[in-house]
Every structure is written in structure tokens, then in C-alpha cells.
């Protein structure tokens, strides 16, 4: 089991969701986050005072999948969120030790899908 974390551009979320559905990945957790990478932030100005902030709004997707789903999930995210410019985001893949469905008490691979 793997835990896939993807940081993407906010306006790409709808596309990513659509592509994931095509790959039968239905379960995900989404949060709005601020972050900085190599992309530069946008300077804001309030009453003439500049606020240089390198934090940008991004969306974080967290998806727990069985091993056989990892590549399809990553592919779906890649093809739907890539613009080919700095700021497209990153994908992290972590080992997932255990997964438990609260309602039934099922564990492991069965509980994920």
C-alpha cells in the first residue's frame, strides 16, 4: 500500500479529479495549502506597502492506494496537472503501513478501495 501526496495548481483540481475517476480512483482527501517551491510568489500591495510573499496557494491531494494502482494514479495526476512550467507541483509517494475502515474494522488492502 502506498500513500500518494500531490501538490498541484488549484485550477487543475477539476481536471485531476476527472482523470482519477477514469482510472477508478474515487477516494481522496483534498486540502488547500500555502507553499513555496521554485515558482515565485506574487507581491501584494496594501495602501502602498508592499508585502513580498513567496507563498502561493496550492491544492494538496492525498490518496491511499494498493500497489497495483500506484502508477495509474501517478499517470493520471501527471497528465492532468502538467502545464510544463515552474509551479506545476510535486508528487510524493510514501509507504503506507496500515489502513483501517472504521465502520467495519476491515484492515489492509480491502479497506482502501
Amino acid at each position, binding site marked *: 500500500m502506498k500513500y500518494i501526496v500531490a501538490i498541484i*495548481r488549484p*485550477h487543475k483540481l*477539476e*481536471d485531476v479529479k476527472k482523470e482519477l475517476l477514469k482510472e477508478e480512483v474515487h477516494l481522496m482527501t483534498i486540502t*488547500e*495549502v*500555502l507553499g513555496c517551491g521554485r515558482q515565485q510568489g*506574487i*507581491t*501584494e*500591495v*496594501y495602501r502602498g506597502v508592499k508585502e513580498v510573499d513567496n507563498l502561493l*496557494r496550492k491544492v494538496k491531494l492525498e490518496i491511499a492506494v494498493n500497489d497495483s494502482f500506484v502508477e495509474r494514479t501517478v499517470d493520471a495526476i501527471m497528465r492532468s496537472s502538467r502545464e510544463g512550467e515552474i509551479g506545476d507541483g510535486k508528487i510524493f509517494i510514501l509507504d503506507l503501513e496500515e489502513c483501517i475502515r472504521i465502520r467495519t474494522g476491515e484492515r489492509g488492502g480491502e479497506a482502501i478501495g
Partner: protein
Amino acid sequence: MDKIIAADVAWMLCASALVLMMTPALAFFYGGLVRRKNVLSIMMQCYVIMCAVGLMWILVGYSMAFGPDRYGVIGSMDWIFLRGVSIVPDSFYGTSIPHLLFMAFQMMFAIITPALMVGAFAERIRFSSFLFFIILWSLFIYNPVAHWVWANGGWLSKDGALDFAGGTVIHVNAGIAALVVSILLGKRDGLVFPKSPHNLPFAVFGAGFLFFGWFGFNAGSALGANGAAVVAFVTTAIASASAGLVWMFLDWFFNEVPTMLGVATGIVAGLVAITPAAGFVSPVAAIIIGAIGSLIGFFFVTKVKPFFGYDDSLDVFGVHGMCGIWGAIATGIFASKAYGSGSGLIDGNPIQVWIQCKAVIITILYSGIGTALLYFIADFIFGMRVSLREEHVGLDLTQHHESGYTLME
């Protein structure tokens, strides 16, 4: 010389302020309906119109719209910089209030009309070209149409067209222009329709204050504290009540549940529909005008727009354009001598319906073609649309370097 009546002055001062308040109300109504990243841009557009168009009105606008008539088409330049517009009442416009007050009241109308259009090009227009375009539009579309319908000697008013508070001049005019701009500007990128509003309570607040301000808009158009003002006040309240309820039931029937945004939209649709008829019709007619207005608005917003796929982002055409057209025609049907100074179909004067239709058609043609021309000029000089990247990041950050909401302290 006519005598100034204190009661009229008091009421018209209040009414003018009420109408001005509708523009900030609109900023909230629209602001709540757009996505979070564009909330300030749309509020900014409304507020800048208050400043820019307000000033243009003083410089040349008032003279173009209401100045001494030239061939029934346009006002002369005799009153630019408000030359000769003083505290002495004019002999034609609001004979019991200072001429300056009449000018101020009309200024608020000149402001809200282009502000209504903002909803059609929300979330994708470049601010600089917006400003240029809106000033041209106010000068060359709003002012002439206002002259035709309201000014002493305007050719549509000589033709007998009835427009109590601006159904054709304001709502049809802005609604058609909105449709034209939204088509020329194109759809927003990658938007899944319908897009949920980012802050519905803002929209509800805005609609409520539009309702409140509209009493100044309609009842103020009587230009005095008199019977016509009372008729307009009552019909305004009734039409929007009936329209809000009808929209709610339509929602309930077609979309399974009654919705808050539905009621708010219905109320606005009713207000638009009653505007041209406000001081001319009976309270019962107001119920019908509001109800049918809601029906038409609902049909255009939920069926026609998705069918054709134009991106009239906040339904300016569906609500203001279509309900304005209905209201203008309804005035020709329901105007009654018992309540106001015009008579329509129910008074045995069917020709009034045709006169109203003519005024609507002429407004549609002039506004449609004129707006398209101005759009091409502004687009050629500045480029009307922001880049795709700017659209994705949002207009707040890219056009104004501000954001409406912080994510963290």
C-alpha cells in the same frame, strides 16, 4: 418660476442616496457569486464606476443626456460642467426640486447602469480596458438612450413610450450590452457549470440592499413626495415579493429544492420587471408583472443560457435584460389612468403595447450594435481579456495585487 417644495427636496435627497447605495449592494451581490480569487476585482469595478461615471456625468454626461435637445437624438453641450444647472428648478425636469438635485438623482442611475453589466464579464476582463470601455459605454450608449426616453424632446418619449424608472434605459440597455460583451469576450477557462458561489451570504446581503435601494430608484422616479411615488413604492414591494416566491417554487419544482440564491435572484428579477411600470400600474398588476418576470428570468437563466452556452457569468442578460424587456412591454399592457399618467391595453389603449415594443427593439438594436463597436475599439487598443495564466491565478492578485481572504494569519 416654479416654487421649491421642501417635502419633495427631502424625499429626493433620500432617494438619490438610496439609489447610490445600490451600486455597493451590487458589488456584494456580484462579489458573493464569483470565485474567491476574483471577489475584489468585481467589487473594484463597481466602486470605480461610482467614481469614474459619476465624474463623467458632471463633466459632460448630464448635458449629453438631459441638455437642451438636438433633433430628439442627443442633448446639446450647453450644460457641460453643469453650466446653468443651479438650485433653481428646471422648467421641465422635477419642477419642485432644485435642478442640481434632479441632476444628482440621475447621476446615480448613470452609475448603476454600467455597474449592472459588470456581472457579464466577471473573472476575465483586464482592468485598464474595462475602465476605458465602461467610460465609452456610458458616454455613447447610456447617455443617448437616456435622452431618447427621458429628456424633454427625446424622440422615444415624444413617441409616447412609457418608462417610469428605467426599464429600457437601464435594464434592457445594460442587459443586452452584457450579452454582447459576454459573447465577444468568450467563456471563462475550464469552468464547470454551474459554478457554486464562493460566498452566498454576500449575495443575499447584496440582494437585500438592492431591494432596499430600489425604493429610491422607483419611488424616487416620481421626482417628488407625491401619489406617484407611493404607487411606485407599493408596486415595487409587491412585484418583488411575488417574483421571489415564484422563483422559489420554480426551483422547488424543477430542481427539487427551494434555494436561497433562487429567492434572492427572483426578488431582483421582480424589481427589474416592475421598474418601467412602477408608477403606472395597480398593485394587482404588480403581482402579475413580478410573477411573469420571474418565470421569464428563470427560463433564461436555467434553460436558454445552458442551451446556447454563452458565459453571461452572473446572468445580467437573463435577469436584467429579459425581465427589463418584459417589464417594458408589461407597462404597455397594464398601465392604468387610475394609478398613473399612462394608459395601456387594459385601459383600452392597445397601441401602447406596440409603442413599448418599438422602444425595446430600438434599445436592443442600438445597445447591441453600439456595444459591439465599442468593444472592438477597446479590444483593439488594449486587449479586453486577461492572459490565461492571469485568469487562473485570479484577477484580485494579477490586476490589483490584493487578495480578498487570507489562508493563514
